[in-house]
């Protein structure tokens, strides 16, 4: 018995070692045999599809010229990537390009290891879609190049909608419309008449922007460092009231975990909800997943009744350039960032992932190709983006503690869902958020 166990152990160990050997050290093997200038790109998209796409672009770029050689590496989550870059900079060996998520913008800015990409020579940014570029412009300078951008849209289980007696192309415009439709569906005993979306503060941020409201003071942190989080404004209370109603009427379905994208998508895919809200980046996947089980419709993100639609904040990530590198590296880094987001690459990026192509020329080309006529769902997403009014609200907030804010807001929303008082939950959230922001600002 004992010998058998020993043999088993040894077999297992050697199997593990041998079979994993093939994948050793795949990263950072720069073919720097010649004296080309090295450019490293750290990003947060570790899955095979997206990192594969990036690697393909890297190879193309490397083949297209012989001044620079680019390497790419996925560094884990957005947070990890930014943290790794900051640590690497302290160690005197920063990557050239770093992929930073939107709520990390202020952190990245404050860390002092980056420089505005707009400062590296002259290049044209007119082609980038205005609301997208808007987010990444700080102090009037283009700080980073938008890369993967998305916004939330409404996904509709059209079969349930029709069963509830609505026309198939009905799209609820407001919170009230949406709740009304669910109630009608429930009266008609439509199964799974629920609203599902991940409990994620991203939606809260979006709904603030749609109402033209600032999430933080000082013009959303763009005029001066933000010192207050506007969680008790009328706009915030409207969102709170919506959550309250969802909870009271028991029509909201989620997995209970914060920011559980997959879990809430599963609810919709499994036919357990009639309306679902999630990122435009999931259009392709979800459409494919529900094919054959039900018809899916897409509409603009519903907003509080009586509000003018300002549009959504662009979410996702952008590419930043670190400052502690040579002039030549800086130029190479910029060139690669521009190459990565050129017209054709943005088209294939969009087709692969559902992220917006962030250039007007890409959109035009897609339109010519007939991409939108074939897939009207994508058009809804685009219109939502293109009709966004460029102002400080839709430019999105800047603040050092936006990440903490997300948790604070999610906790407040959960409290409200569980029956808590809207105003006191929001007031408490505001107090905590302000205290954390003050604590962060005290670093300067």
């Amino acid at each position: 018995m004992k010998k058998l166990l020993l043999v088993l152990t040894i077999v297992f160990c050697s199997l593990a070692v041998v079979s994993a050997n093939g994948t050793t050290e795949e990263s950072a093997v720069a073919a720097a045999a010649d004296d080309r200038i090295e450019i490293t790109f750290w990003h947060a998209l570790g899955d095979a599809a997206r990192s594969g796409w990036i690697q393909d672009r890297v190879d193309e770029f490397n083949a297209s010229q012989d001044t620079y050689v680019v390497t790419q590496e996925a560094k884990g989550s957005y947070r990890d990537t930014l943290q790794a870059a900051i640590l690497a900079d302290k160690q005197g060996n920063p990557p050239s390009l770093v992929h930073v998520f939107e709520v990390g913008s202020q952190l990245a800015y404050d860390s002092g290891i980056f420089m505005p990409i707009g400062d590296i020579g002259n290049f044209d940014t007119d082609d980038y879609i205005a609301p997208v570029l808007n987010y990444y412009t700080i102090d009037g300078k283009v700080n980073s190049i938008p890369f993967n951008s998305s916004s939330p849209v409404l996904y509709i289980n059209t079969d349930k909608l029709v069963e509830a007696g609505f026309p198939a192309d009905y799209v609820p415009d407001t919170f009230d419309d949406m709740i009304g439709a669910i109630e009608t569906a429930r009266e008609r005993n439509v199964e799974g008449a629920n609203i599902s979306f991940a409990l994620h503060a991203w939606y809260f941020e979006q709904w603030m922007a749609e109402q033209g409201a600032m999430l933080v003071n000082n013009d959303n942190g763009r005029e001066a460092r933000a010192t207050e989080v506007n969680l008790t404004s009328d706009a915030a209370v409207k969102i709170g009231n919506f959550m309250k109603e969802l909870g009271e009427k028991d029509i909201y379905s989620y997995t209970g975990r914060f920011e559980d994208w997959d879990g809430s998508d599963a609810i919709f895919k499994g036919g357990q909800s009639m309306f679902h809200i999630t990122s435009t980046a999931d259009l392709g996947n979800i459409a494919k997943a529900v094919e054959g089980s039900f018809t899916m419709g897409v509409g603009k993100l519903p907003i509080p009744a009586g509000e003018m639609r300002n549009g959504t904040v662009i979410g996702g990530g952008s590419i930043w350039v670190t400052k502690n590198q040579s002039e030549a590296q800086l130029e190479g880094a910029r060139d690669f960032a521009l190459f990565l987001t050129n017209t054709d690459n943005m088209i294939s990026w969009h087709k692969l992932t559902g992220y917006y192509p962030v250039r007007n020329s890409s959109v035009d080309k897609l339109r010519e190709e007939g991409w939108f006529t074939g897939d009207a769902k994508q058009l809804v997403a685009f219109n939502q983006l293109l009709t966004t009014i460029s102002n400080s609200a839709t430019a999105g907030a800047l603040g050092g503690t936006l990440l903490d804010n997300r948790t604070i807001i999610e906790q407040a929303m959960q409290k409200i869902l569980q029956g808590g008082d809207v105003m006191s939950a929001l007031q408490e959230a505001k107090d905590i958020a302000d205290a954390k922001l003050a604590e962060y600002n005290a670093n300067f």
Partner: protein
Amino acid sequence: MNRKEPVWVHIILITASFFICFPLIFALIKSTQQLSVVTSASLIPGKEFFNNFKVVWNDYNLGRYIRNSLWISVWVASGKIVLSLLASHALVFYRFRGKSLIFGFIVITLMFPTEILILGLFELVSNQGASSLVQLIQWMFNPVEFFFAPTKYGFGWGDSTIGIIVPFLASATGVFLFRQHFLSIPKALADSARIDGANSFQFLTRIIIPMSKNTIGALALIQFVYVWDQYIWPRIIIRRSANQVVQVGLNMIVATGESVQWGQVMCATVIAIVPPLLVFALLYRAFMNGYALSSDK
């Protein structure tokens, strides 16, 4: 005492065994089922295990994670055994001043589990080292900076396996256990060894270690499982998935892809439990004997 045990003892034991074993059996069955059945209540084994295995092992990096974990566990467990053998050898068979002070110094570290130190340890391990020796020495000889300010220079081991091996090579538990065991060895043995002209190292390798197989086994088991189970430290210090350990890697498998592929996730958990289970089965006897020895005598 040969009282015949009534049926209820069996009932209790069977019920308890069921509840304790069910989750693992469940995971095992689910790892073999095909996609359409995994999320149903069906508990009939399927034939998908090897397909799931292939996917998690290659596409989701499980092979890599397991290899890293094995590598780390073997290094740390053996390091802990060797270093504690040496230290407790000195603590028991040598006569020197400050012995109890040193023992106290070692045992008091039991009060500081890794988790409690993560902030300080993180800075120490991930901060970059000083760029020159002069700089380092200047820092070290400035007591205010060195002792009373947050750590300035570190080892620069962030994101590397060294960062999860080296800080854990010593073990207070090991020293404690070996010391306990060594004290149970008759002193006469040491005396006669010395008279026979054996030096202390020969005494350790030829006499003490062969007599300590059970304690070594017990410690190997405890430490292997301890290192294999480590979670928070690798989670913080390792960023590249190529260097990640299996416990944290599991979480990434859960989060990979569009929706959770539970069959594959269960397959990964089943595989990840095999190495510690094998080590446990292998060393269980030694562990029981080693424990009985150290607690009885």
